[in-house]
């Protein structure tokens, strides 16, 4: 597939993605792109189709039409439509979930170790024989996972079961688990939901740190203060349609967006 020069620095390019559930049009011809090193916010009222958008991207649901192109740095674009979720993660896009989906009965460290799965190779025989290669790999998994755990500030919870972690810590653990798959694009689905202001503050620092490490971020969030502060660009969805796109300042003043959120009559807008 030919890569146009203008999109050379885009890491994600979605063209008119449509998704319907029966008669419900959850997404209608949505275009969206994320550039290298950018933080893009995706906002919209409840039921606007934000999480559906993520699910289509990551292969949980196959979209009805449209193109999803993922462009790894210095490589050709990959069309993600129809790929299984695990293949998409292998390509370098990872996500977290709105309703926390950790592996509850595994320890914090193990949760992250699972994230390393797609970057490692030991098979059945490797596991049984435990040769030098497997040993080295296993050691590497532990050390990378530990470092990640440390970096999201959960060092003290190494061997604690995920379900026993405080709520904010579980959210951060999900981020660490996603990072363990070595993504260049990270999708965060309401990472600050249920967090208190201090936790949100620390989360913002964490997101900035992740961006600095070279990972582009697409983030869904309801906390407007957070999204306005960290996003480079914001895309607004309402009823499955993209109604606005721009820098935070523009979005803040945009009439259509304000109406969508305040529920004003569409004819009047």
């Amino acid at each position, binding site marked *: 597939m030919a890569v146009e020069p203008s999109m050379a620095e885009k890491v994600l390019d979605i063209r008119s993605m449509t998704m319907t559930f029966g008669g419900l049009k959850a997404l209608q011809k949505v275009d969206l792109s994320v550039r290298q090193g950018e933080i893009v916010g995706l906002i919209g009222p409840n039921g606007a189709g934000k999480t559906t958008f993520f699910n289509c991207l990551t292969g949980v649901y196959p979209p009805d039409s449209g193109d999803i192109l993922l462009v790894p740095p210095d490589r050709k674009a990959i069309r993600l439509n129809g790929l*299984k979720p695990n293949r998409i993660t292998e390509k370098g896009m990872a996500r977290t979930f709105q309703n926390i989906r950790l592996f509850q009965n*595994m320890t914090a460290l193990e949760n992250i*170790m*699972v994230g390393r799965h797609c970057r490692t190779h*030991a098979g059945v025989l490797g596991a*049984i024989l*435990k040769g030098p290669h497997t040993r080295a*790999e296993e050691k590497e998994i532990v050390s990378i996972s530990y470092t990640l755990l440390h970096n999201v500030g959960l060092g003290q919870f190494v*061997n604690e079961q995920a379900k026993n972690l405080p709520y904010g810590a579980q959210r951060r653990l999900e981020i660490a688990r*996603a990072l363990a798959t070595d993504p260049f694009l990270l999708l965060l689905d309401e990472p600050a939901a249920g967090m208190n202001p201090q936790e949100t503050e620390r989360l913002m620092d964490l997101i900035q740190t992740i961006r600095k490490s070279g990972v582009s971020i697409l983030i869904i969030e309801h906390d407007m203060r957070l999204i306005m502060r960290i996003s480079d660009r914001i895309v607004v969805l309402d009823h499955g349609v993209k109604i606005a796109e721009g820098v935070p300042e523009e979005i803040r003043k945009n009439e259509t967006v304000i109406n969508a959120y305040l529920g004003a009559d569409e004819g009047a807008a």
Partner: protein
Amino acid sequence: MSVWFMLLTFPIMVIRVNTVQKTVQWKWERMFMLGVGVFFLSYLWRYLMYRKENRPKDEDKIPWNQRLLSEKKYFYPFISFVFAFSILLPFFVSEYRVNVLITAMIYVVLGLGLNIVVGLAGLLDLGYVAFYAVGAYSYALLNLHYGINFWLALPIGAMLGALFGILLGIPVLRLRGDYLAIVTLGFGEIIRLILENWGKFSKGPSGIANIPKPGIIGLEMNRSQSILFIYYLMIALVIFTIFVVERLQNSRLGRSWVAMREDEIACQVMGIDRMRTKLAAFALGATWAGMMGVVFAAKTAFINPASFTFMESAMILSIVVLGGMGSILGVILGALVLILLPEELRAFSQYRMLIFGLSMVLMMVFRPQGIISNVRRSYEYHEPAAAEGD
């Protein structure tokens, strides 16, 4: 409560109609005994319930079984004691007991095999016995037609088990939970029915007899020697199984199984191939069943489809659930309890199913995680991370 029970069982326990003399016997003393019995049992029940509800206080205390396994000063003496005990045991007990122990060990391995599927990967397989049958019949038939000996049949049985696991797994593993359970249940029955009805192939319900026992070339063994030989063979196989399952459990694959059990979608999104992981679990579980099938055929020297009914699957599943899903030590204990106890309690044999059912219900109420619950491995890691983190 006890009064209620007295009323409830009144017709059965108290009135006895003597049909010959046409008189009615009233057994009031029985009613009294029952009343007192139920009265005390209900207190016991409440006490246990009370204890169950007030337990969480001492949660950070490390359970004894974890200490036994994780601390070397307990672990090595414990394991060498168990080993020595099991080596010496056959010299002190009767041949019959040794036979029972062999059966128990077969179930230990079967339990550990099913534990991979049910305990680790969380796939409810109600047709596990089918793979057991595949193993047993592969040895019996290969021996009958081609004279293949036990040692060759052992890996062949295991491989055929795995092959059937994969063949069944490919279509079936798209299903989840209850649906998977039903289909595997059906598969177990299909295999049994095929064996029963395809007379030309499997000799039908009359089964296959005179299956040779395992031997060593150039060594003639009489009956009791060969039982002893199978006993030691089983010890070796049990150790081998524990070794393999333990390694699998703490490997990349084992982690992905547990993750799959915990949350399938999250697992896929984390880059784990769902089908592959499930198939691996299914095939590896079936491998042990196939291998044990071969040993079973060799031990009993006669097999027919009646040995592979749903009750067997249920038994193995009970071992896993009762012992503790995902826990190796638990499954071993579960197998020993469920196989050895009924043998020791022959006196109560008519109540066996009753006791069995009752203990299952009590287990689920008071200790749903099994005798020994699975403890996730803890990792210790310090040196380089501290340097990198700062």
